[in-house]
């Protein structure tokens, strides 16, 4: 999953980015509204964390303009907590609204929820034959036994599982699993696929030659 975090408080931005990357997300950042809007338009992020008080273009404006073209899930972060602000934010097109100071584990859970909702998988577990992907706990078990995965491996699996039945091109996978800072190293993706096959079985991830990968597709 690839996220965009738009926040002008540099310390907070750095910390959020670090934490999210440790969770396995690819993270792009922006420190003002204008940069944030242009990145959000350019890339199909899986979710955007958007601070309300931004220089350049404030969060409300950014959201309004973004919503003209894209339905990317947006979680707003703000220090303003009146009921009016919440209504305004949610009505304005935000998918969730979190008040600072926020509880970090809660924020992470909301990010997961908002991604699940947009992938039309409201339940937190995806079952594929004997493999269960727990989206909330971010872990995988096979035949009831927990299979340890690297965060990057889990991310790939999660994306494929959420888009089960679709063929996902390599480009799309790159777009969603790597952030702007990583150069496109084609084998990184292949290495992860092969690790997953090794840990979870050769049949889980299917290759359609010339097109891409998928779960539950025909080769």
């Amino acid at each position, binding site marked *: 999953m690839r996220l965009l975090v738009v926040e002008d*408080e540099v310390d907070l931005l*750095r910390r*959020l980015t670090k*934490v999210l990357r440790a*969770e396995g997300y690819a993270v792009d950042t922006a*420190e*003002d509204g204008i940069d944030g809007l242009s990145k959000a338009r350019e890339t199909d992020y899986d979710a955007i964390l958007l601070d309300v008080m*931004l*220089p350049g273009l404030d969060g409300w404006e950014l959201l309004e303009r973004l919503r003209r073209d894209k339905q990317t899930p947006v979680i707003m972060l703000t220090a303003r907590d009146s009921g009016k602000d919440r209504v305004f934010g949610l009505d304005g097109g935000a998918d969730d609204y979190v008040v*600072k100071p926020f509880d970090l584990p809660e924020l992470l859970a909301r990010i997961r929820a908002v991604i699940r909702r947009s992938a039309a998988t409201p339940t937190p577990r995806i079952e594929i034959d004997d493999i269960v992907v727990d989206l909330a706990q971010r872990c995988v078990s096979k035949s009831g036994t927990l299979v340890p995965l690297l965060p990057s491996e889990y991310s790939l699996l999660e994306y494929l599982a959420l888009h089960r039945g679709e063929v996902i091109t390599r480009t799309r996978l790159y777009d969603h699993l790597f952030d702007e800072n990583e150069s496109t190293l084609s084998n990184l993706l292949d290495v992860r696929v092969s690790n997953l096959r090794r840990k979870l079985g050769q049949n889980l991830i299917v290759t359609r030659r010339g097109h891409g990968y998928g779960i539950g597709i025909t080769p």
Partner: protein
Amino acid sequence: MKPWRSIRVRLAALIGLLLFAALGGFGSLAWLRESKARIAAVDRELDERLNLLISAYRPEPGQRLSDVSEARLSPRAQMLFANEGGEPFYHIVWYRDGSLQGRSEHAPDVEMPQGPAGSRMIRASGGMRELLQFTQSGRCFLVGRSIQPEREATRKDALMLVAAGGAILFVGLLVGWWISSSVTRPLGVVGRTSREIANGDLSRRIPTTGREDEIEDVAEILNETFARLEQAFERQKQFTADASHELRTPVSLILAHTQGALLHEQTPEDYREALADCERAAGRMKTLIESLLDLAKLDGSPAAIDREPCDLAQIVHECVVQLQPLVRKKDLRFDLDLQSAPCLGDGLRLTQVATNLLTNAIQHSPSGSIVSARTSGEDQACLVIQNTGLGIPPEEMPDLFERFHRSDKSRARATGGTGLGLAICKAIVEAHGGHIQAESVPGETTIFRISLPKNEAIL
């Protein structure tokens, strides 16, 4: 409230007491006069009859005293002694030896009284009033009358006076109660309304009727006090709201750093970094809190400023020296014209102001430009700081010195600004009895001017 504490009761009781005293005094006096007058009338009649009696028993020329055994009454005396109408008089006359010379029909049986010869005296015994005359020859004349009717009349008088007085007193007490109520009722209204306001809604006021009497004065003073209280509470509420809002940012930082570090096992290096991040955020909170406390101190008692002789020129000079590293870093230059500007005040505080304004000027100036600072002391101690740069947009000028105002939100964060700098400057300058103002041409220049009262002692 206990009855005796109430002014209404005491006032009414006082009026009642005065009325009682007045009525009692006058009533008693009148009654005494009347009863004295009655007795005096009886005495006059006794006197008249005694004189007639004595004449009637005077011996004729040639007659001896002992020969006179009957009264020789004049027609008037006869009439009087006939006792027609009214209470009957009686008389008795004794010879020196105690034998009777004469007596009236219904005279009581008494012993001959003793007394000095030639004297006349009055006596009262058993409801009778008697006038006695002792002659030179030793005889005793006595005229008397029962004064029962007079006593009756006097008693009736007393009863009537008590009844009338009581009725008047009763009416008077009612009037007195009404008078004292009409004074204390408005006081009660003021008291009750004040308590309600103090306990509840400070935006209410005591209703005034425009009468402009003593009680209205008190009500107006109370209303003014409530207004000031309401304002003070509002300011405090606003301040608390602002402060807690401002503290949200560093707190969310600390929370994010600590919770982030606790999510998974981290390397010692990661933990150290998280702790350093927390320290930085806590430092920001510390600065904010110190600034807030500073402001609160300045707000509280403007009189608590140390007053010592200072010179703005010297203060600015020292600030400039301190700020040299910052100036060099931004490749700026200072243009100084520091004439002596003596004033009375707190040197540390004034340094705080100068440092704040000079730092602002430096930070808002583009690289390579000039920051100018001028002090002068002609009729006031003045300091003028000017810099070129983006300036301040006109819509922000009115709120420039307000707490937590920041002209450019992200810039303030980057430089660690609390938004309280100018508010503190204003508070300090005004506590010294001076003025601070700002002018700006957007895109060109910004000027801050401070003026403080001169140090009179130096003149």
